[in-house]
């Protein structure tokens, strides 16, 4: 749930960090699975930002609508 509040650039930065850790061999095999899972979730989050709505914006759009009606 905490990840939902990450911005796109924060998520990308986190992904890049993981990629770098794997690339430079900093990660040992025991950690690998967990980090890969984390990266995959972050990637999913990033993608969702392209395709999905957030409640936040829906709300503000509604607010604006009602303001207009007034």
């Amino acid at each position, binding site marked *: 749930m905490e990840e939902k509040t990450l911005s*796109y*650039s924060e998520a*990308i930065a986190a*992904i*890049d960090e*993981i*990629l770098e850790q*794997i*690339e430079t*061999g900093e*990660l040992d*095999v025991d950690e*690998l699975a967990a980090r*890969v899972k984390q*990266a*995959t979730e972050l*990637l999913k989050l*990033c*993608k969702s*930002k*392209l*395709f*999905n*709505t957030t409640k*936040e*914006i829906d709300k*503000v*759009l509604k607010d*604006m609508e009602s303001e207009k009606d007034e």
Partner: protein
Amino acid sequence: MDNRAISLCELLTQVKTAMKNSLPYSWWVIAEISEIKVNFSGHCYLELIEKNESAESIKAKVRATIWSSVFRMVQPYFQTSTGMELTAGIKIMVKASPEFHELYGFSLNITDIEPSYTLGEMARQRQEIINRLKTEGVFDMNRSLTLCEIPSRIAVISSKTAAGLADFMHQLTNNPYGYRFFIRLFPAIMQGDEAEQSVIHALEKVYGYEEYFDVVVLIRGGGSQSDLSCFNSYWLNYNICQFPLPVLTGIGHEQDETIADLVAWKRLKTPTAVAEFLISCLRETEDSINERSMNLINLVTVKVRDESDRLVRTIMALKPAVKERLSCHASILRVKGLNLKSSASKLIIHESGNHSARRVQLATAVREFLSKRSHQIELLEKRNSYLDPFLILKRGYSVTYHNGKVLKSPSMVKPEDVIDTRLAGGIIKSKIV
């Protein structure tokens, strides 16, 4: 009094005649259009003004006419030369002759126009505004903002009815990749006198919701090339420059860029182009996400392969190591076996040496013993020799036997018995008498 009076018409006719005589020529005149309209028959009626230096008040004003026969030529000429139509607010240089009509009063009859003056004038004004924005340090402000990676929340400033707006919305909502855009229209008048204020007002409204948007799009329906003056105005551009979100323009004109195009974060030609640009931004972002996905997969694949290779290598390395270790131990064992053997045999040899030594010892001891004994025997023999009857005999003693028994008393014999006397030199047989 009555005789001296003339009719109004007569007076005005005299004015007309006097003017014709004293101002018989045409003049090139510079003025600003404050009003312009074209009637159904193609005649163009204008109001021309001249403002004072501070542009706050009008110091001259006149009606002017471009008859349809002239207007048909002048209008396209002006438009193709300047890229804009004759419209209120622009300065023009026209060839005009003053005319006076009894009924319609004073006006200028325009017969020609010099578009390059307007161009020059516009360029000068434009440059002045650009310089001012630069001097004030705001010119590059919007352009130096960063557009976020997913500019999907869009505040659109446009006129509600603009054809370009519908295209824009359609293109975004039906993008082939399925990206989701949030588009909110902030309506504004995009041309005419009110445009500047209207657009500024719309920007202010967007500003109130700043955090909910990624980008502001200024679009204007295509078609008419006329009246971009609001996009060249100082105040509108001052607002665009300082707007905290990137502003994209799609004002839809082919001619020189407006100042708004220059100060905006990005200038695109048409609303459609703006939509394409925004979609391409998301596309790029998706590509970079996909690239990272691929990267992740590759890295993990490589990592797993490397690790398993390492395992295999370790196992391979282990085999000879084990073999070596085993053979090493085997040879140690062998050596130890050999050592054992040799030390055992040494021990045996040693022990057997001991044995032989002992045997020798024993033999020696036996021999010694024997020799000792033999010596003793010798001594005894020697001693005995003194007792040897033979030796005693030798010394003159004799022994006498009777029937093989030593005679120790004469009573042991009777006469006639034969006795044997043993002497050293032999035996003498004698008969007892």
